[in-house]
């Protein structure tokens, strides 16, 4: 699996952990898909971020997070923070 695919798998695991009802939508996620289009509410979205931080043992700063729009952005952020 490429690093990008691994990151995407991790994101999908995070989404499943916070909102099981999104399982059917996971397959359609593309890098250019906007994270908001998944329809998670704001609390679930932040819980998803918390899940990723815990798995990667990093802290994403607020300032970095607000500049992320698409799943591709999030994959890139994960890649940058992976040791």
């Amino acid at each position, binding site marked *: 699996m490429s690093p990008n695919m691994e990151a995407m798998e991790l994101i999908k695991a995070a989404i499943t952990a916070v909102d099981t009802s999104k399982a059917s939508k996971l397959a359609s996620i593309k890098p250019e898909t906007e994270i908001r*289009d*998944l*329809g*998670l509410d704001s609390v679930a979205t932040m*819980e998803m*971020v*918390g899940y990723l931080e815990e798995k990667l043992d990093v802290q994403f700063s*607020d300032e970095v997070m*607000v500049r992320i729009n698409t799943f591709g952005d999030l994959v890139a952020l994960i890649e940058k923070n992976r040791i």
Partner: protein
Amino acid sequence: MSTVDPSAVDLSRAPATVVDALRRISGIEDHGYTFLDNANKPTFFSYAALWRAAETRGLALLGHGLTRGDRVAMVLSQPQDFVITFLGALLAGLVPVPMFPPLSFGKLDAYADSAVTIIEVAGAKLIVTDKALSSILWQVVPRVPTLKDLVVVENLDLGKKSPGPLPTLTADDLAFLQFTSGSTSAPKGVMVTHKSLVANCWAIATEGMGLELGSDVAVSWLPLYHDMGLIGFVITPLFKATDVVFIPTLSFVKRPNIWLQTMHEFKGTLSFGPNFAFALATKRASEKDLATWDLSRVRLIGCGAEPINANVMLEFVDRFAGCGLKPGVPMPAYGMAEATLAMSFAPVGSELPVLLLDAEAFRGEGRVVNPDDDALALSFVGCGKPFKDHRIGILDTDGKLLGEDREGEIAFAGPSLTEGYWKNEAATNEVYRPLSEGDGDTTVWLRTGDLGFLHEGNVFITGRSKDLIILNGRNHHPQSIEWSVAEIDGVRKGNVVAFSRPGKESEELVVVAETRADPPADLKEAIALAVADRLSLKVADVVLLGAGQLPKTSSGKLQRRKTREQYLAGELGGEGVRTLGATGEKLTVARHLARSLFGRATHAASKVFNRPS
């Protein structure tokens, strides 16, 4: 440094201002505020240290050319930055305007727009933010004429300071502006004076929570730009020198376990949260957490800011019973920014005050009647009685006081009532006014916009007549949701209604739209996506109707309340339309709730209330 025994400080009477409240405990070295940072690292400020830090911060703010009464916009996500800056501004006689920081995942333009609107209304001269957020907030500065500068909190104390002295404040001075939460095109700033703050905080500290000097430890993750977190946990504890541990809000939202973990670690005795937080804590606690946590010291966890679901409270109590959590811990409370914060608290330590009533009599006539065994029952959670010297009344549609056990608009009067909305006389006069003209009684009552009834002096909230939709503790105006849906291809413009329905855990969003003749096949999905995209809200159900099927007034105005009632009764759009959450499910839920509550709560109800007759 000498340690002052808090019991040697006279805290038996209310001070005149919040500054006086802090000043009289400014010698106490062994109690104070603990701030956790994003990595959970605690920093302790004794009340003495807090006083010194606030004094320095206040002089630094005045050093930026501000004078007494000037408004200061605060966008600070770290509790330590927020609390010291807020208290510093109060000491300096400035008027802080707490604002929400940008949430994650883009939409920065929309954030900047709403920040501009609030700062413009407040007429703030200065923004205080932190380094991380400053680049976003700098975009706002040139757009608001009153703004003179932006300063990052990390540099604030290092800059030029006023030589002092700090001003002497009076009870009538404006303390801060509380902008009402939620997305609306015209935000309103509630004017909170020291007088109403002191009245409300004193009532909360004494009657409401019964704060115990030296033995209580409060824990809060609540956002500090919101009244519940700010007044409940930054200001109220000053009146009794109570220890407080602050968790950054985002830490809680990212890892909900941190709430009770912190209660355990810091031997917390009290906290507060909206309904959704109880559900989240119950869901996310691991078996390991349950085996580790000691929650036996917890006296109360208040529940407010959104409709309270009795089942969620009971599941919370069940889930943590093994950690020593007492069943009477969840404590319903009722309040709003216009009443400073709190209007009523249920008694501390009593079982959940749940009242079951006959659904027919209530829905049909707004009367509270004891349900027969085979009748459909509705359940409501009681939020206690108003504080001493305060009154809660129920008004009929003509604005006259109703008796007990009748549903109407909730009104509130007393010394905690705020002064109205900043520079918005029209909005102020609409909701702050005497009951009726010409009868000589000039007592000003707040029209809360909420619906409810009184039963044996206890207030029960049954709905929001302002149609406000509350999701995850945040208020949303239905218009903003409806507008974003109205633009979608296939939807009949102006024929969209948004409201909330009770979900399994907390309120859920429902959108009903009339469609054009040949609506696109994926219209439901498109509606849900538009709401998610523009407002970050999850839609639980979308109902599509043909033209003319939404309930309207004779003048063609949409009737949200009626639409919601029809939806819940499964009658929307006439026969043949059966919706999710309609009759069948609703009946089952109500019956199930009635049964499970009767088992557990009849005992409590009989203690707290006589059943309605």
